[in-house]
């Protein structure tokens, strides 16, 4: 990141190659749509470029990037909501397919994540999919470590209850 700030083009390329999959998964877990996640990833890197002066070298880079990623996602959500407010449905759309909750005993992680509230899902993805520490998640979300632990705990409780329900059904 420091090399990127110094204008090293190769460092910029390396950052994009190394971190794009991780942030794509973060956006995918929030939007559950590949196209939207790709769009968000592009927007994210443009924001990283314009905000690169706000990174200070010895500080951990991932919380800085995740804080920007969250902002990108929130902006996109608001843009979509505003757009949805101006649009109206002209005809009845086909019913969506039933969620793939239990498929011969396999439980889809994505479906389970989707059942969580957005703040809990975000914390869980950062902790368990991206591998950030509690302190790093607290920095990225602008909250306290206690609040992150509480959200993660609630998410685990909810997932445990869901898995129990699926187990009983199977």
């Amino acid at each position: 990141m420091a090399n990127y700030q110094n204008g090293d083009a190769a460092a910029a390329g390396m950052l994009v190659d190394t971190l794009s999959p991780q942030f794509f998964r973060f956006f995918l877990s929030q939007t559950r749509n590949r196209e939207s996640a790709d769009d968000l990833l592009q927007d994210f890197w443009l924001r990283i470029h314009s905000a690169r002066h706000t990174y200070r070298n010895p500080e951990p880079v991932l919380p800085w990037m995740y804080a920007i990623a969250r902002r990108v996602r929130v902006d996109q959500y608001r843009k979509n909501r505003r757009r949805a407010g101006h649009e109206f449905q002209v005809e009845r759309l086909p019913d969506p397919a039933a969620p793939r909750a239990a498929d011969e005993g396999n439980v889809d992680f994505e479906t389970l994540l989707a059942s969580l509230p957005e703040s809990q899902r975000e914390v869980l993805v950062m902790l368990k999919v991206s591998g950030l520490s509690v302190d790093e998640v607290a920095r990225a979300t602008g909250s306290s470590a206690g609040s992150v632990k509480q959200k993660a705990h609630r998410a685990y409780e909810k997932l445990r209850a869901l898995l129990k329900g699926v187990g009983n059904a199977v």
Partner: protein
Amino acid sequence: MQFDVPGRVSGATPDSASVKRIRAKLMGAATPIRPLPSSGAMMALSVGVFVVMAILLTIPFGFQGFSRLTPGAAAIEYSAVLLLALALSGVVVGQMIPGSRRILGPVAGVVLSVVLLSAMASLLFPVFEMRNFVRQGIPCLRLGTLCAIPAAGLIGLAMKRGFVTDTLQAAIAGGALAGLLGIGVLALHCPIVNASHIVAWHVAVIAVTSLLGAISGWCLSRFV
């Protein structure tokens, strides 16, 4: 029963053409930039500007409040305002830097300021005279709030140098620091050393400006 962790989310990869495009764009635009100074340096600069602005804004109205205080009371009152200015500057700087460690949130900063300033006024000036309470109070609230406006503009410009990730929180923090500047001006100007007057009309400035900050932050995040 299996728990399918490496499912569609955890194993997904972005479109390679899209990544190549981003890569080319960023590599083409990679130019050297100067990172922001350390948080400590920005906080020190902010407190310096706070002091200079408070003095400059008091000059047209006069320093009657300063001359009414005993040296001990002045030292305690101005030290408390400076300490809070440092703390709120830290909150504002934290809002400008994504992923920075936040010890004090903007709302907690406002509550701390209100509690500390009210307690200090009650201990330093234990007079609870209510005569001309509203007639004397309204001009103080108005002056403090008006003095906060240029400070809020300056804080807004400074925040544009950073990258605000939460507009609402940042606007509350900015409003609180601007309001504290208004309180600083009143502490230098207002000659009324009466706890009820200070708590109700001086300390109220920070509550009003934080609320105005919250409203403007909410509007910015919703409609801009």
